[in-house]
């Protein structure tokens, strides 16, 4: 049985598919029969294969300059999109976000006063927990915008939430209360519990990977707190261990504040 000659025009039309292995068996046989008799088409196949192989191994290019500076400047600028929709009743998610911001503002004010009254130095670093960054509250308010074609607002900015002033009478009570051992833990326990509740309530809204990072860090802090308490039971007069425990509790509050203000995943 002889195979019909497909001719150069048809061979050329099938060339890319042949090089990429996309022809069916019958077409492959017909084309290869033609190639056996046509040097021009053999050259064509060879050129296409060489070009394709060379393209696959092209080296990566590098920009002429470091583009990070421009990128960093753009992501560091918070973008607040205007909500064009008419304002009716606030959705539950927005109310929860506002409540989280209010709670964080109050707890950050209390924490500020506690740290100021305890030690003038910077907070003690516990274990491998690094400084966390706090998102702009405006970014939380903007998460209600769900238009799919618009870019999402920048989720985080590296800034600390400013402290909230509290009356002199309360400030005085806090200062005197914190001078006794264990006072920081008693003072921060309600805020920690409230922030933990906020985090639990928002768990389904947040990215699971982010929640895991937060929980892993909380576990580290709790372990540090446990170790500091155990050491204090053996050496109750140690100011260093008291500072260590207080620092760990403050870290826990900071982390919970950050988690409470994380933007919801859309």
């Amino acid at each position, binding site marked *: 049985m002889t195979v019909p000659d497909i001719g150069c025009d048809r061979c050329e039309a099938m060339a*890319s598919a042949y090089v990429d292995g996309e022809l069916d068996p019958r077409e492959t046989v017909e084309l290869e029969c033609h190639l056996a008799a046509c040097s021009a088409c053999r050259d064509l196949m060879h050129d296409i294969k060489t*070009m394709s192989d060379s393209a696959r191994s092209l080296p990566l290019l590098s920009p002429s300059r470091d*583009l990070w500076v421009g990128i960093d400047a753009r992501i560091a600028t918070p973008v607040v999109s205007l909500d064009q929709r008419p304002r009716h009743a606030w959705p539950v998610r927005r109310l929860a976000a506002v409540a989280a911001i209010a709670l964080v503002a109050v707890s950050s004010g209390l924490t500020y006063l506690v740290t100021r009254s305890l030690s003038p130095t910077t907070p003690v670093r516990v274990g491998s927990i690094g400084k966390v960054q706090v998102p702009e509250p405006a970014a939380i308010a903007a998460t209600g915008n769900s238009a799919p074609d618009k870019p999402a607002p920048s989720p985080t900015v590296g800034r600390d939430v400013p402290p909230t002033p509290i009356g002199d009478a309360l400030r005085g009570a806090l200062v005197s209360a914190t001078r006794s051992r264990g006072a920081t833990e008693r003072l921060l326990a309600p805020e920690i519990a409230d922030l933990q509740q906020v985090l639990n309530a928002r768990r389904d809204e947040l990215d699971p990977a982010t929640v895991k990072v937060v929980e892993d860090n909380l576990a580290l802090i709790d372990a540090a707190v446990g170790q500091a308490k155990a050491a204090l039971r053996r050496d109750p007069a140690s100011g260093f261990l008291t500072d260590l425990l207080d620092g760990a509790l403050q870290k826990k509050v900071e982390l919970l504040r950050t988690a409470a203000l994380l933007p919801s995943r859309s």
Partner: protein
Amino acid sequence: MTSVSASGGEASNPDDVAMAAAGDRHAFERLYRSHVDRVYSLCTRMCGDRVRGEELTQDVFVRVWEKLPQFRRDAQFSTWIHRVAVNMVLNDRKSEARMRKRLVEDDSESGDTPLQRASTTPGYGDRMDIMTALESLPPGARQIFVLHDIEGYKHEEIGAMCGITSGGSKAQLHRARMLLRAALSR
């Protein structure tokens, strides 16, 4: 911990992805440094211009930063950022096409920076010729060739990204290869 992927770029540290998603800009900078060359290469080769390639690369990373909290770890981060880059270039081309309907461009004032200057290795022989010839392709054919022969996408994926059929992608690829062959033969 990072390793070198088959594409020649560095694989991403999963911790950096998680930390960047939580707002850590230092972690995001590490991701940038791991992926910038691959993203820049894709953008520049698809658009055919070095300066525009740098602008698009910046746009890609800003978009990645915005969308990172939505990134689900069911795919490789490198695959995901690559897809963001492809979409960015394709959308840029659509915007450019709309603008050209209203504006008449003078080629002598286009300010394009030829693709061959984007090469990092002067006198690279055959590879330099291919990159020069790539610039001469019509934009659509060039993009399909870059996506298929350089970046390794399949025709079905290209069709989905570009809004064409896989048959259309195959036809464009064949056209690109024939034009490149003609350009390289001159």
